[in-house]
């Protein structure tokens, strides 16, 4: 899965914002923290959830179970707004 090309990511001072360019399915904006930004960064290329978890565990030196929860939550949210290309 990866982020659809018509979604753009904007980062400012530790906050990440995601929004579609054309807004046909979803025309709002999602806001998240640094972790969310890192997940979106992984989704720039085709990855699995496990690969995202692995990448974030390395990047943040975090507990795998916690990262898995965050990644699952983020990916579910992104799917619900139609931002993921499977």
């Amino acid at each position: 899965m990866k982020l659809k090309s018509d979604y753009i990511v904007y980062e400012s001072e530790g906050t990440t914002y995601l929004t579609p360019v054309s807004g046909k399915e979803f025309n709002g904006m999602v806001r998240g923290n640094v972790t969310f930004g890192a997940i979106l960064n992984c989704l720039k290329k085709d990855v699995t959830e496990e690969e995202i978890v692995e990448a974030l565990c390395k990047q943040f030196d975090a507990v795998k179970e916690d990262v898995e929860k965050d990644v699952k939550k983020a990916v579910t949210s992104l799917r619900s707004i139609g931002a993921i290309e499977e």
Partner: protein
Amino acid sequence: MIKGVYSFAGLNVLILSNYSFVHDFMEEYRTISKSIDFTVVVNEQEIYKEQQFLRELGPEDEYIESKCRPENAERIVVLKKIAEQALDYDIILYHGSVIAVNNEAYMFTANSGTGKSTHVKLWRELLGDKSVMVNDDKPLIKIKQDKAIAYGTPYNGKHHLGNDIGVPLKAVAVIYQAEENIIEEIDKKAAYPMLYKHVYHPEDKVKLLKTMDLLNRMVKNISIYKLGCNMDISAAELAWKTMRGNEYEAKK
């Protein structure tokens, strides 16, 4: 093509159109200046596309036939093209009602029909000659390093309220209807998506990113509030006393 040069937000824009309607509409902003910052040209395909878009937006609107007239559609296309090119000059197009007091501008934004213009009318009743309308619908906002300047445009709402002026923006309130008036200052990070909803969104990725960056810069330099309000003058009293800040009392 019919041409005219108009001045908005410090820019001189040459407009080339198919119908005279947009030129009559903008007459107050006409300039004789020979220096042009950019040109807007509208073709018939763009007018047709806008007419289709308008029809899709409001098929039950009783004024839909009037709104979809080609000359009106062209007027809207001109606005969108101005908005897209003005980004190169760090200017965004915003949907809000702006009123100025003591050379400080206050903008109210919300979905159409929520009551922006109604609330700003209460400000005019409350403050009388101390207040001046900048724009009641689509102001242009120039984003500078340390401030934002709200400018009047001809696109100033159904009651044509606005002036050809630029005033530094002090605060923005996102309004909603409420039985009891309530106002709270909101965290800028939380406010950003709310304000993003009402800025013009170009369809081009690069321009949209520029818009987001300019909006972010605007947010950094103003106070932002959520305002729940009814139609009583007390709503304006509460908003004015809160949004003007403590420095107002010190200046008096």
